[in-house]
């Protein structure tokens, strides 16, 4: 199927779309309100600091490969006092979990291969 062409959607992701996030509430305002209230509460200082939560968010942003979240939480972690070493390590944590998640499924592969192999 052909995608929308021209100025409307010359790329699927655009930085200018990020500030429009709130527009998602246009057709489901109550659901959006609940989401944004919950989202705001999640990131407040709690048992974890807002800075720690921001680092987790940056790692998850890379795991789910969301360019909007990567942009937003790179800026957010820096503004919360993290440096480039620290946010790079957060990305490695995400990458290690993703890589590890693939590799640990090798156990499943080995189970099957062992069962049917000679």
């Amino acid at each position, binding site marked *: 199927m052909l995608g929308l062409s021209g100025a409307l959607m010359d790329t699927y992701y655009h930085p200018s779309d990020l500030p429009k996030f709130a527009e998602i509430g246009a057709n489901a305002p109550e659901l959006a309100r609940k989401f944004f209230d919950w989202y705001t509460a999640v990131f407040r*200082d709690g048992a974890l600091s807002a*800075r720690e939560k921001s680092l987790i968010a940056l790692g998850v942003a890379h795991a789910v490969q969301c360019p909007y979240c990567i942009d937003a939480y790179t*800026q957010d972690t820096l*503004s*919360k*006092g993290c*440096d*480039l070493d*620290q946010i790079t390590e957060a990305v490695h944590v995400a990458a290690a979990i993703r890589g590890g998640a693939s590799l640990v499924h090798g156990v499943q592969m080995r189970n099957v291969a062992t069962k049917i192999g000679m």
Partner: protein
Amino acid sequence: MTTAVQRTLLPTLVSRGSELASGEKQLAALARAAIRGDRGGDFDSHLENAGLSPLRATGIEVFQINVGKVCNQTCAHCHVDAGPTREEVMSRATAELCMGVLSRTNIRKVDITGGAPELCPSFEYLVRESRRLGRHVMDRCNLTVLTLPRFASLPGFLAENRVEVIASLPHDRALSTDRQRGEGVFERSIEALKRLNSVGYGRPGSGLRLVLVTNPVGAFLPGTTQAAMLAEWKRELSRLHGIVFDDLYSITNMPISRFLDWLMRTGNLEDYLQRLVDAFNPAAAAGVMCRGMLSVGWDGTLYDCDFNQMLELPVGFGQPRHLLDFERALLERRRIVTGRHCFGCTAGAGSSCGGKTT
């Protein structure tokens, strides 16, 4: 953010022959930036909307003395364009004029800044005389000056005179600190903090107050509460280096001088200014530092704040412009000279020599 750690000493704008060494050219560069929004980048219009126009002083609680532009560092973001090659420094005669004016007032706080204020030959005189007059003295210290061999006795001198040390340290780790302030600066700053701790600074019950000042290392705003950052820094500096301190001020980078030059060279100016404008906070504007201070230049000229001083914008609207003409009754209710750079003090929680303004 630069991709390589800066050399220990960057050339100043003046030594590079940059047109941004001129306050007028800096203001023109700020004025050219395209800003979106109803009021655009007009600071006075934002003030008016907040019911604060015209902005006026509410008194003079702080007598800030900038003793000159000489410094042993050349930080990438310096709003003074200070460095070892600068020659502007307060003379003994002007220092005595400062103390003469101070003695005729009851202004409680003397805030000594630079450059590296300790490099001014009149620094010790200013400290001793201010203390003799019974005033609280603050030294805006770059820390590394304390590690220079000829300043080995400086921590003791500061402690003896009960000077509050307000020390610049942009980040609690080396990477960002050295990117902004020069290679090896973090390590030397830690050494300086240990020397201050060793004479009692930052230790509970000593009465020797040690404050650290952090600022973003790049084109973004401070984004966390000062209290949260204070807890993080106290834990990390104690855990990694055994350092104690009393408080942490978080300040916003002012888009002037070398930081302005960096913003322009890296294509960050308009986005950064837009962030400052979008984050204009009326509560922060009501508490801006210029309303409660008077800033004195190395040659005795009077300014509303250190930033206006570096933009060569003396007090305006017919007010006395030099220490020789100091008249407290007029100056303490003066109208403040404002401009686009003022958004640097009114964004978010606000920013001042004492950290947030809200």
